[in-house]
């Protein structure tokens, strides 16, 4: 007898590899998904009675493939395949039929499955929706809730994305080294998008909050396949370290708590520990990339026992590396925060003022600028920046956070008037 929760967890864990292998057989997303669904139905019946197979993923691939072939045979009135219910473990049946899938085959299968979700013609939101539906196996309803759209609208969006992908043609040839690394780059970006959807959700937004866990699961999957890639390590470590603060990032009202005000006892130390160790491993490769540098920055924050003990000089240096790797005004803006700690708010302000033209539509620019002006005692200028930030806030929590600064400004100026 097998616990239904165990079966559920095993099915979820096996899904990416199983669907990816079935996609290789059928070369069609819908067919692969259908075959996998059928295999899951049979697993629910079979495993509960016969116990779990030794290798659930191979079992699902095997049964899914047979079920689909079975359907074809039935339609052409041929003899049906032997019933898998007679065996609990398909080890014997499976070996001669399905080639033993080695790691490298899984690797290209799963990479392909993830890669087709990041077709360049698909906007980011559709890439994420498609990956969540196909790779992670979330229901359309779950995804619709996460994106705050109706189920029918999301269904349509996913169908359209699938059609576009099908039109583009799925790349089935085994990729060469360069192509593999290009695919990996696109896939990592997509996984990080999924993570950010979850990360930016407020604490009450459970539908979207779960996406961070989902992205971490995909990150682990990638690292299992590309265990010596420093950037894959960097991506997983970055997500683990950022997610470690999840319980401390919002207060009881759902408002953002800044890093400096967070209760560090509420950080998840297991995630920090794992993230820090992975960064340590990756650094040994002496091949740095943007995810790894960002993870290293997050690791420095995570290691500081108190905000005041943060090693800002190292953070400044890491941001300088990041600016060099991927020049962007947003990175300079982040670096300015570190500079304000080491060289003071005026130096930081001088650094970000030239960015105004590029970042005038960016919430964080005005928020950070307001914060620096406030530190310099320029209350009125700060107020203006905060007002702009509020008008650009993406979430209620972001707006509430800035409003808190404004409230404090008003309170201070009233105190000053009274005095």
């Amino acid at each position, binding site marked *: 007898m097998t616990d239904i929760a165990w079966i559920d967890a095993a099915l979820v*864990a096996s899904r990416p590899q199983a669907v990816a292998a079935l996609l290789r057989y059928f070369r069609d997303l819908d067919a692969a998904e259908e075959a996998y669904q059928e295999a899951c139905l049979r697993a629910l019946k079979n495993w509960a009675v016969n116990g779990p197979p030794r290798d659930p993923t191979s079992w699902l691939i095997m049964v899914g493939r047979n079920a689909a072939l079975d359907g074809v045979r039935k339609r052409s009135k041929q003899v049906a395949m032997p019933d898998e219910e007679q065996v609990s473990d398909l080890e014997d049946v499976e070996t001669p039929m399905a080639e033993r899938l080695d790691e490298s085959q899984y690797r290209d299968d799963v990479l392909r499955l993830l890669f087709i979700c990041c077709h360049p013609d698909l906007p980011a939101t559709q890439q994420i929706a498609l990956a969540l539906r196909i790779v992670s196996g979330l229901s359309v309803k779950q995804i619709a809730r996460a994106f705050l759209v109706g189920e029918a609208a999301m269904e349509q969006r996913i169908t359209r994305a699938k059609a576009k992908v099908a039109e583009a043609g799925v790349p089935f040839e085994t990729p060469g080294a360069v192509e593999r690394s290009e695919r990996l780059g696109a896939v990592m970006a997509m996984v990080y998008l999924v993570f950010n959807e979850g990360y930016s959700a407020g604490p009450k937004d459970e539908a979207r909050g779960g996406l961070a866990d989902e992205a971490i699961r995909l990150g682990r999957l990638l690292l*299992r396949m590309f265990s010596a890639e420093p950037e894959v390590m960097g991506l997983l470590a970055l997500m683990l370290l950022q997610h470690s603060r999840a319980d401390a990032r919002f207060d009881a009202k759902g408002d953002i708590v800044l890093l400096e005000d967070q209760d560090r006892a509420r950080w998840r130390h297991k995630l920090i520990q*794992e993230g820090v160790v992975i960064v*340590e*491993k990756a650094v*040994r490769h002496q091949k740095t990339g943007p995810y790894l540098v960002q993870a290293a920055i997050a690791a420095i924050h995570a290691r500081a026992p108190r905000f005041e003990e943060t090693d800002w000089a190292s953070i400044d240096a890491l941001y300088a590396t990041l600016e060099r790797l991927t020049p962007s005004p947003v990175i300079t803006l982040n670096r300015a925060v570190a500079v304000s700690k080491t060289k003071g708010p005026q130096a930081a302000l001088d650094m970000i003022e030239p960015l105004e033209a590029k970042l005038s539509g960016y919430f964080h620019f005005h928020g950070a600028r307001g914060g620096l002006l406030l530190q310099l005692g320029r209350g009125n200028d700060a107020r203006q920046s905060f007002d702009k930030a509020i008008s650009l806030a993406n979430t209620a929590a972001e707006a509430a956070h800035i409003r808190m600064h404004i409230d404090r400004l008003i309170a201070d100026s009233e105190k000053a008037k009274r005095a």
Partner: protein
Amino acid sequence: MMYAVLCYNDEQMVCGWSKEQDEKVMEALHVAHEKWEKAGKLKPSVRLLPTSAATTLHKAKDMVIDGPYAETKEALLGLYLIDVENLDEALEFSRDLARANPGGAYEMRPIHIYSPGTPIPGAYVAERQYANTPSLKPEAVK
């Protein structure tokens, strides 16, 4: 007789547990731990970080590989718990051992939870235990 009980499971699945699921299992385990600890029979136990955090030193070529030890030919013959500054120091430790004991590999896996269990009176000497086992006394074999 002292035993090491090695814990195996599907990592993909266990890592996929939600925080609540994980806590539920840990609580249930805690009940079992407590029972054996009270009886004085549970010695140190550890929960390891996932294999994503593992590094392996292949002794023959002094080769450091990311990830866990994946070969199935070798068997697990022993383990050490060490408290070091970082991965580099763990590697230094492993290399010292490797010089004394060539062949095979050392997998270095960070420990997430360390529970000391019932204190072990004095230093534990494996041979002393064997000596007390009647059938293994040299005279018994004679």
